[in-house]
């Protein structure tokens, strides 16, 4: 379906996956999260093939933030974040001292102190996204995968979420991968970018990708053009 994709990511790196609708960004992310088997090729996690890990081991290494709405709309913020400790608790899910500390850490990291008991149904999109990221944080994994975390948010909150991701990656040495349509923001904030264009699928630092004129080839040229100086897209032939 898609030509070969190859990339490697280390600790403390924030990576964005961009590409035109339907090119397979979410499919790639789902493969990395092991929600579906690899269509072809290998995914190595810490040098070991992804499929060799058990479900429990995976849960302690990779956490996710998805686009699908959470099922229980009325769950309180703190209860939702506490679910992140699932891989570490006993059969009853009883929270230990460490678990509670991790939950507190995640809450303060994402400034959610004021809304601990708020039901998720009453949160704004931006707040809900922060809560979901806090849950993934509480899961204490080295790797965090996010599927379009900035969709539905206004520009201000998009930037807020992305800055949080960048801080988490750099200060806590997490590896964070997210898919996005906000290419201009991704160029400014990501350490590495994967452009899925169905051809060579280049993966590099944003400045190198601009230099190699990869963004010009991202979309068919009839509607938008890319300005390499400003790193932004312009509408063509209005």
């Amino acid at each position, binding site marked *: 379906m898609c030509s070969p994709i190859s990339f490697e990511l280390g600790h403390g790196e924030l990576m964005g996956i961009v590409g035109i609708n339907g090119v397979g960004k979410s499919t790639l992310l789902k493969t990395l999260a092991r929600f579906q088997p690899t269509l072809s090729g290998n995914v190595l996690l810490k040098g070991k093939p992804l499929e060799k890990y058990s479900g429990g081991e995976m849960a302690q290494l990779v956490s996710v933030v*998805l686009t*699908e709405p959470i*099922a229980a709309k009325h769950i309180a913020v703190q209860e939702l974040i506490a*679910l992140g400790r699932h891989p570490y608790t006993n059969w009853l899910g009883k929270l230990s001292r460490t678990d509670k500390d991790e939950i507190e850490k995640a809450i303060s990291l994402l400034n959610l102190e004021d809304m601990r008991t708020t039901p998720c149904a009453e949160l704004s999109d931006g707040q809900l996204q922060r809560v979901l990221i806090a849950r993934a944080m509480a899961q204490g994994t080295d790797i965090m995968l996010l599927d379009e975390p900035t969709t539905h948010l206004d520009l201000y909150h998009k930037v807020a979420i992305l800055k949080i991701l960048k801080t988490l990656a750099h200060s806590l040495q997490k590896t964070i991968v997210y898919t996005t349509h906000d290419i201009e923001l991704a160029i400014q904030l990501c350490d590495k970018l994967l452009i899925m264009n169905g051809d060579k699928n280049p993966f590099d630092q944003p400045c190198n990708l601009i230099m190699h004129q990869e963004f010009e080839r991202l979309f068919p040229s009839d509607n938008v053009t890319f300005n390499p100086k400003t790193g932004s897209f312009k509408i063509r032939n209005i």
Partner: protein
Amino acid sequence: MNRKRSKKAYFLITLMVLLLCFMGNISLGSVHIPLGQTFQSLIGQPLENQSFSYIIWSYRLPKALTAILVGSGLSVSGLLMQTLFRNPLAGPFVLGISSGASLGAAILIMGSGLVTGLYLGHLGPDLALALAASLGSFLVLFAVLGVAAKIKDTMALLIIGLMFGSITSALVSVLSFFSTSEQLQRFVFWSYGSLGNLGWGQLSLLFFITVLGMLISMLSLKSLNAFLLGESYAQSMGVDLKRTKYMIIMATGLLAGGITAFAGPIAFIGLAVPHVGRQLFQTTDHKIVLPAVALCGAIVMLICDGIAQMPGSASVLPINAVTSIFGAPVVIWLLVKQQKIIF
């Protein structure tokens, strides 16, 4: 900490209400027995009136215990369904599981010439009925689950559950068309639902089934909480989806199927009580909600049974009618109050 203490207080209050309803339920009926004497008899002291003691021990006590088992079992099975299908309107009735049990019972009662009747016949009528109804409910449950794996839309799933219900009731009507009036009467009485038909022997069997179902649901408490976020999140947190689903289904099939077998199809308890429990205890954590729902279910069932007895008169209403009269308004009230059913 404070919230935890208040939950404990809530549990204590609920438990006390349950005890009160239990006593009340036993003292109510066509013959009025004063609460004091009821209590005396229950703690083992002989009563002056021998017939009171006979009524209590061989009729009312088993009925009240049945009500507790049926109420808590059906409510828990409803809670499990709602979490598994992430649908606030799920329940043993809506998903056609009760209709499956009816089909099993109908085949056994009315289609006795058929193979099933022959095979189950030598097990004794009670066990055979329980087994047939459980098999029927498992059958529908697996069919619904099979469809659920293909269809993500929960609304469609409910409709499919209703369709399965229609198919099974169609089969039941075909069976009843060809059955003798005696068989038909037996089936119709079964389908009205009744808590009072169980002797101590059947009661202990029902107790065993309910406890088994509850134990299995307790083993999946943690996974149930993970399911609150949806299957993908649950999987990402290390939940074994397949195993958990089978556990939940086994528990539901045992609870809903077993109870329907002994007490007949009882509507609305499984759908309405989980909402009452969640509202009362203000949480979605299954560690709290599951026991809370079990307690509430027992209370509601005891009250419904008390009403069905029509205290002071000799006649008894079908329990199914009473639970519907209680349950349907609860669902409407929830919808109106919240604008939408929360979960």
